[in-house]
């Protein structure tokens, strides 16, 4: 049998700097490095390297670097090397290609083509160091009528809502796809920051019930881990209809990762593959969705907001309009760049639409139909920085979910091999020796640091625009201008081109 596989990376070691401390050998779960006694030096097997950067970060003398393997097939703008290597893999295995994390293909990134305004002269900017800057957000449906008491005073009755100290929450990542320690870090950081984290479709581990005030519990198509206490223990309940990375299909967690606590939390036997079905088998129409939303509300005594999470697809505006009328309090939209623990490569790379366009289209549609106040909008699908957060809010979002960004804060280097379960950073693995590498104290602190920094940046950008409260930013498309966008793109986003007044 011919081995057609080409190693994607090459480990380059500066032997002048290497002191044979063997940290790289001890810390690589792919067994790339080892110390060769006879030669008295470290040898690296580049074919096993996934470019997770663990050895590079830990080397005390910075003797290592990972380069793309320069071994090149003949250049071909159409038959790029990756298409060839993928065919070789499928010719050998006959299997569906699986990938992890978000779509890496060079589709346009609209956030990078949108610019933010700043105020000068006619409308002065506000100094965030001297004036109060409010980034606090409430998520939930607005009441349709105002009620007054006998003296004519307003009765402050609000439907259930979530209170966020800043417009960012941690996105749904299931226990099973990420480790116990990763969940612990997310839960602690959410509590400390005054925001929320999401259990994902893996259920909620008993040890995290104490963070229930900051937990959003997810009910996905497989209904893993869903029981009465689970629903009671969330601050909100999210019905997951779809996910940006794999619209139209359900989640997949290989049996190898369903061990111990993961299997107990999901309520399925150890070793069985956790395959979530594509649709919820009890939701086959919009009326069925309304029924599920209300059954959940009944089960939780109407005390918790219900979120419906959908993937951004072609007619997302019409779908969102239906959901806004179904009784849901919040709609979460996940764009095609969203991350995943494992998804079929073809679906991850070719299905769905960018969140910026989906958001522009949904927000405009809901306003046109006068139902924008029925729901709050939360968006996800590659929010990479505080600038993305500001742009998303200007396009109409109430808040954003961050998934990949939170993992990166905890040490992830986006090597995109989560599906092998050997994450060297202790994030996307269930192996106890690897999970140990993610110290939740350190990881939680990193998450808190990142979002504190983002919050300051958001305040700086808001102050620069002459706005001192995030509500005035929401849907404020006049604060955005596009560059290098064509007429249709500008129309869908609802913004003008840079240079237009």
């Amino acid at each position, binding site marked *: 049998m011919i081995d057609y596989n080409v190693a994607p990376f090459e480990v380059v070691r500066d032997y002048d700097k290497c002191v044979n401390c063997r940290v790289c050998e001890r810390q690589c779960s792919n067994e790339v490095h080892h110390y060769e006694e006879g030669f008295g030096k470290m040898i690296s097997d580049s074919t096993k390297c996934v470019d997770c950067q663990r050895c590079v970060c830990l080397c005390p003398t910075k003797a290592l670097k990972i380069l793309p393997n320069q071994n090149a097939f003949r250049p071909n703008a159409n038959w790029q090397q990756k298409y060839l290597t993928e065919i070789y893999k499928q010719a050998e295995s006959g299997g569906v290609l699986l990938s992890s994390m978000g779509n890496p293909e060079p589709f346009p990134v609209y956030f990078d083509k949108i610019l933010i305004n700043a105020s000068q002269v006619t*409308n002065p900017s506000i100094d965030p160091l001297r*004036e109060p800057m409010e980034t606090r957000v*409430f998520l939930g449906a607005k009441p349709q009528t*105002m009620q007054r008491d006998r003296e004519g005073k*307003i009765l402050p009755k609000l439907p259930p809502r979530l209170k966020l100290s800043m417009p960012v929450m941690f996105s749904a990542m299931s226990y099973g796809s990420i480790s116990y320690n990763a969940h612990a870090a997310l839960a602690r950081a959410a509590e400390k920051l005054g925001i929320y984290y999401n259990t994902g479709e893996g259920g909620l581990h008993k040890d995290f019930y104490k963070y229930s005030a900051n937990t959003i519990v997810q009910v996905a198509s497989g209904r893993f881990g869903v029981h009465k206490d689970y629903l009671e223990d969330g601050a909100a309940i999210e019905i997951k209809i779809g996910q940006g990375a794999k619209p139209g299909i359900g989640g997949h967690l290989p049996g190898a990762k369903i061990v111990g606590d993961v299997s107990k939390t999901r309520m399925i036997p150890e070793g069985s593959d956790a395959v979530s079905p594509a649709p919820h088998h009890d939701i086959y129409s919009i009326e069925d969705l309304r029924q599920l939303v209300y059954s959940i509300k009944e089960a939780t005594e109407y005390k918790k907001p219900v979120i419906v999470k959908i993937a951004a697809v072609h007619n997302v505006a019409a779908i969102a309009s239906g959901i806004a009328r179904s009784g849901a309090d919040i709609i979460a939209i996940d764009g095609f760049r969203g991350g995943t623990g494992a998804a079929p490569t073809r679906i991850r790379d070719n299905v769905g639409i960018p969140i910026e366009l989906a958001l522009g289209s949904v927000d405009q549609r809901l306003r046109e139909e006068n139902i924008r106040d029925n729901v709050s909008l939360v968006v996800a699908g590659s929010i990479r920085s505080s600038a993305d957060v500001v742009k998303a809010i200007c396009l109409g979002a109430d808040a954003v979910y961050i998934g990949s960004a939170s993992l990166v804060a905890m040490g992830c280097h986006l090597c995109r091999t989560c599906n092998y379960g050997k994450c060297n950073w202790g994030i996307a693995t269930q192996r106890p020796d690897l999970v140990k590498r993610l110290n939740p104290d350190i990881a939680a602190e990193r998450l808190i640091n990142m979002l504190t920094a983002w919050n300051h940046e958001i305040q700086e950008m808001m102050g620069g625009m002459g706005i*001192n*409260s995030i509500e*005035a930013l929401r*849907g404020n498309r006049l604060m955005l201008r596009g560059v290098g966008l064509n007429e249709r793109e500008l129309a869908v986003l609802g913004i003008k081109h840079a240079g237009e007044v």
Partner: protein
Amino acid sequence: MPAEEKARATYLRDVFSAELVTGPFSIIVGFDGGVMALNDRLKLRSLAVAERGDKVYMASEESAIRRVCPVFDDMFYAEGGKPVVYRVKGGKQ
């Protein structure tokens, strides 16, 4: 703020969040039966109000009022976020 007032203020802020006006402003709004002067919450701009007899003068600058009415009984500046309302004598209530 007492708990009841706080609940009402939170309700208004939450329900009508899209109507919140931010940034510096000094505005004078006429309505049937009167006039209202309003400054932004943070008092980033000036707004002067002067009374003389049964007349009231409002302008963003004190100098503008003095040009028209050099002598007056009382002059004060509007507080940030608190409307100053005057009703016309015999006007609509």
